């Protein structure tokens, strides 16, 4: 049993690492602004499935790592992830019972909130100016959610991560 849970933990962290790589992967300039928030989507998936294991602190750690990878001010994304994951945690039971399209809407709102938080913090620090591009990731995350959740669920089933 302990073996299973250990490998389960590893599997989840592997998906987080894949999400991090996808998040920093170079994209053609036209698609750049439309990159879905892979890390946040993965985090939401795991928090919905295993809220007791992956929640606010996981988000915090991944936020710090992402900040370092993106060369941003350390702590910005940590704060954004923490707050967004807290919201997911609060409504986890309800979210799990939502139909997929309704979940997508919630994900859209959460990603938009996250982008706003990051924008707001960077604006306070004076390293960012406003542009509407801000909300493109929310739209692409909305579109991608169904499949992302399906992938994470299949992985969770296959490796019996419970």
């Amino acid at each position: 049993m302990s073996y299973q849970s250990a490998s389960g933990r590893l599997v989840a962290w592997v998906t987080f690492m894949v999400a991090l790589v996808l998040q920093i992967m170079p994209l053609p300039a036209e698609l750049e602004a439309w990159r879905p928030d892979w890390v946040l989507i993965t985090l939401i998936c795991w928090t919905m499935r295993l809220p007791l294991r992956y929640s606010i602190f996981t988000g915090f750690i991944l936020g710090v790592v992402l900040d370092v990878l993106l060369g941003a001010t350390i702590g910005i994304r940590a704060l954004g992830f923490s707050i967004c994951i807290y919201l997911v945690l609060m409504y986890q039971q309800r979210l799990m019972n939502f139909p997929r399209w309704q979940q997508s809407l919630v994900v859209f709102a959460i990603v938009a909130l996250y982008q706003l938080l990051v924008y707001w913090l960077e604006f306070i620090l004076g390293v960012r100016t406003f542009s509407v591009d801000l909300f493109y990731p929310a739209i692409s995350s909305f579109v991608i959610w169904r499949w992302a959740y399906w992938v994470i669920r299949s992985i969770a089933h296959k490796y019996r991560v419970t």
Partner: protein
Amino acid sequence: MKPIFVRGISPQTRLLVAVVLSIILIVANPYLVPFRAALSGLLTPFQYLASLPNLVLNYSVEALATREMLQKQNQQLLDQQLLMSERLQRFEHLRQENQRLRTLLKSPVRMNTRMKVAEVIEVANDPAHEYVVLNQGQDDGVFVGQPVIDGQGVVGQVVQASPYTSRVLLLSDSTHAIPVRVTRNDVRMVVNGTGELDQLELKFVAKSTDVRVGDLLVTSGLGHRFPEGYPVARVVSVNKDDGQKYAQVTAEPLAALDRIRYVLLIWPNDDKSTQVDSKEVTP
């Protein structure tokens, strides 16, 4: 679903701890430079992994190149090399002449600067900022504030250096500014980034300033960061609107910021500017 372990900490407390920690981190950022360098050193494999698809693509483009393509490219490069070597001959002559004149004027003689080629392993993955990551880091002598150029002009400056990689802020980033002068008449200006890769702006240019479309802007060396004389941008539009306080001048960077693959790192402080003794003067 069964709880794996039940901890007494409520989500609210966790959120509070995470938020407080984040705010502490954000405030303490200036002191976190060693921590950031160490962590990004650890995370270097991620950056290489992320750049893998691009590398494969570039490699396959090279591997699939046909004989004619290579021959054509080779011919182009040979032509270019011939042109360059002709210019180099003239340059050498001018350099010697310049050095002689400088010694006559007893001003410091400029020596060659040390340079190193670096490869771009990652481009901005955050649309709000203009960065590239290079495959050279502190271990190769890279330092924060180091100027970076390419074949055509200034690219930007190093803002973070980890042991194996370094992050370069492009001059098109909206937080970047670089002191320049116009080659035609030595007027001093400051070039700001706009966040657009192909557009720079010159702020606070008085309407009476003599600046025209097509003017070449080179580094003035006044910021003590970029050495003097590297080309930066060319003026593409000058708008002297009566309703505005200043002239609106935009310029286009000379460096190909949208498709840089190899850049040059410069060590300007290796340049030993020495006051030459009067007895060395050759009339």
